């Protein structure tokens, strides 16, 4: 073990491609190890999982040996040996053992992360030195103990069955998938253009009408399938959370049980990646602030272990991810007091729960009495909201004192397509995300009034909502008529947008507009090609100010 801590020096010129492959493969193994370890924690006798984790370490070792990544190969070897003893029933696989596997996996991940960073050029090329000797010592100590429970009659599997469960899959570059989805989007548009052009002839020509209908069906199906290629189950993110819950609970001396539902719910892989961060913040928040200590829970007549539910499901063309804890819930009075202290609310203001809960998403807002190393610094929830809004989704909160808190993320299924509400202003069409539109109505006389110096407001069922005349805001001459008001959710508050007409709802493929346009008008989130081939601009309602 003398060279255990000798740094790794990458040779990108000769090994670059191999290293890339190795990093991709390793990430899969790291995931497999982590999931396996968590599974073993609950079912220590699960031989299949044990074997699968063992194989992952083994492959890790093999690749590292081939590429001369000495510390990695030694680390993987140590962990493999440990698991081998467990496989042979010579070592009881208990909590400290699982802990070792997880810590070892984290060390391996550090190596892989650094290799990855240097490969992609995110970090300068330099020797990678991560000390593993301490950890190797721990493994050896664990192996030396060998408490050896009486060997079970079950024969230990010696030759692991190789990849029996792996289904036939092909690895495809995500860039190719993205361009496929783009092309299919264009095909959809072309198809609808042709359909419009031939509409008049189709009435007189049943053959043409049939063929057009068939083409429409096939293109729609093609789009559905091509989008589904990018769809992955949310399971991966949920499993990450399982690890976070486990580690945080241990660190905070809290007992936490995580129950997940709907792990098979699928969404666009681009979204999955960006969902992990906000969820992580929310889970931390739930464990840190939401759940009480076991003692406090007992005193309140609750079970010692707090329960966190993580649920995902599809709903009305979007995906809903819920995080619910059964902790102390949000403290209405404390949040209100804090909001008043920060000048966000008038002292003694009568606010609905919904409005009060939104304060917790304000930057720098934290009612935590002590700052922990996890959360309570007032960063977190505002970042969560921003991230979710960037994904064109929104966060809802429900809570009651002593009843815990429910965070509900409402997200679109994919970033490639938006369910849009097409509105007309001054003869041009604009697209609002349907997910953010709450309702629409024709303004009745007396509904709109002007606050001097503050702009116009709409009185909607006793609620006062600021209003923006979109035409005026954009410097476009609106059409004559009283127009129609669309109520949209912008961050914590509602906003009324006055437009000329509400045309229809349509799924559109999102295209980027050039940087120069976005810089000059940040409320243009993108563009889409509408049914007639013309461009409609997608509005970012949060940037409309």
């Amino acid at each position: 073990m003398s060279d255990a801590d000798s740094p790794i020096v990458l040779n990108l010129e000769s090994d670059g491609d191999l290293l890339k492959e190795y990093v991709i493969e390793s990430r899969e193994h790291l995931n497999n190890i982590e999931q396996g370890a968590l599974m073993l924690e609950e079912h220590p006798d699960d031989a299949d999982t044990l074997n699968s984790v063992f194989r992952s370490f083994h492959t890790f070792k093999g690749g590292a040996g081939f590429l001369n990544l000495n510390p990695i190969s030694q680390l993987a070897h140590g962990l493999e040996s440990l698991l081998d003893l467990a496989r042979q029933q010579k070592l009881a696989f208990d909590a400290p053992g699982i802990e070792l596997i997880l810590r070892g996996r984290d060390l391996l991940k550090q190596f892989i992360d650094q290799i990855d960073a240097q490969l992609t050029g995110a970090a300068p090329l330099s020797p990678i030195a991560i000390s593993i000797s301490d950890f190797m010592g721990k493994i050896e100590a664990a192996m030396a103990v060998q408490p050896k429970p009486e060997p079970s009659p079950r024969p230990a599997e010696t030759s692991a069955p190789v990849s029996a469960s792996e289904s036939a899959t092909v690895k495809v570059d995500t860039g190719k998938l993205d361009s496929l989805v783009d092309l299919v989007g264009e095909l959809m548009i072309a198809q609808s253009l042709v359909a419009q052009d031939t509409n008049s002839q189709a009435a007189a020509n049943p053959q043409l009408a049939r063929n057009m209908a068939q083409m429409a069906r096939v293109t729609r199906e093609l789009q559905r399938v091509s989008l589904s290629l990018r769809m992955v189950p949310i399971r991966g993110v949920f499993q990450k959370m399982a690890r976070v819950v486990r580690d945080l609970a241990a660190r905070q001396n809290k007992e936490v049980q995580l129950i997940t539902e709907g792990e098979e719910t699928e969404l666009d892989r681009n979204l999955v990646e960006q969902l992990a961060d906000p969820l992580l913040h929310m889970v931390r928040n739930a464990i840190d602030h939401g759940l009480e200590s076991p003692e406090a829970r007992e005193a309140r007549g609750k079970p010692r272990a707090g329960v966190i539910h993580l649920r995902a499901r599809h709903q009305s063309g979007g995906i809903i991810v819920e995080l619910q804890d059964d902790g102390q819930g949000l403290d209405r009075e404390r949040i209100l007091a804090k909001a008043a202290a920060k000048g966000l609310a008038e002292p003694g203001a009568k606010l609905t729960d919904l409005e009060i809960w939104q304060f917790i998403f304000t930057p720098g807002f934290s009612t935590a009495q002590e700052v922990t190393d996890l959360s309570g610094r007032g960063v977190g929830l505002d970042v969560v909201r921003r991230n979710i809004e960037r994904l064109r989704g929104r966060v809802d909160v429900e809570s009651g004192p002593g009843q815990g808190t429910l965070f509900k993320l409402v997200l679109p299924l994919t970033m490639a397509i938006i369910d849009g509400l097409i509105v007309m202003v001054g003869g041009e069409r604009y697209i609002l995300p349907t997910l953010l539109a709450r309702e629409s109505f024709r303004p009745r006389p007396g509904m709109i009034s002007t606050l001097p110096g503050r702009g116009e407001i709409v009185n909607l069922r006793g609620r006062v909502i600021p209003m923006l005349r979109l035409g005026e805001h954009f410097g476009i001459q609106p059409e004559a008529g009283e127009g129609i008001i669309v109520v949209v959710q912008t961050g914590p508050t509602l906003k009324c947008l006055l437009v000329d007409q509400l045309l229809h709802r349509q799924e559109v493929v999102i295209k980027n507009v050039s940087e120069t346009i976005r810089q000059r008008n940040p409320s243009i989130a993108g563009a889409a090609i509408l049914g007639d081939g013309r461009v409609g601009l997608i509005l970012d309602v949060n940037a409309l100010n």
Partner: protein
Amino acid sequence: MKAGECSIAEAPSAARPGKYLTFVLGGQSYGIDILRVREILRLIAITPVPKMPPHIRGVINLRGKIIPVLDLRAMFGLPAAAGHDRSCIVVVQGRQADAAGALTGLWVDTVDEVIHLSEKDIEAPPDFGRRMEDQPLLGVAKSGQAVKILLDLDRILRDQTSAPS
């Protein structure tokens, strides 16, 4: 803008002999390097973008790509002309072919012709007493009786992409 001026100083641009596409703006003929021209579009609906300076006319759908369209009249301080059936959009390629916004449309009155210019046809831009660095000009060319102004495309595209001042 400082960085932009710097790069001009490093690479003094001059009109090279070769083929040029000429178009007309307010009666004057202009030429651009034909190698940068991707295609010429007629009668295509431009979607105006709110809150843009006058020289950004809007965006168009170029076979599924959204590209910005510049109004050269507004850029050169010429009076705005109503669109008529001979107006065209000349789609040009930016220098960085990889960038997403590499294609840009130039809205012109009419497209004229493709001319071949040899070294002797091209002259340096005349000194109008103003600082020439402010103008997107590469030179002037005589073709028959007419004088054609050769434009610096990179300059035009860069001005368009630079942040509003």
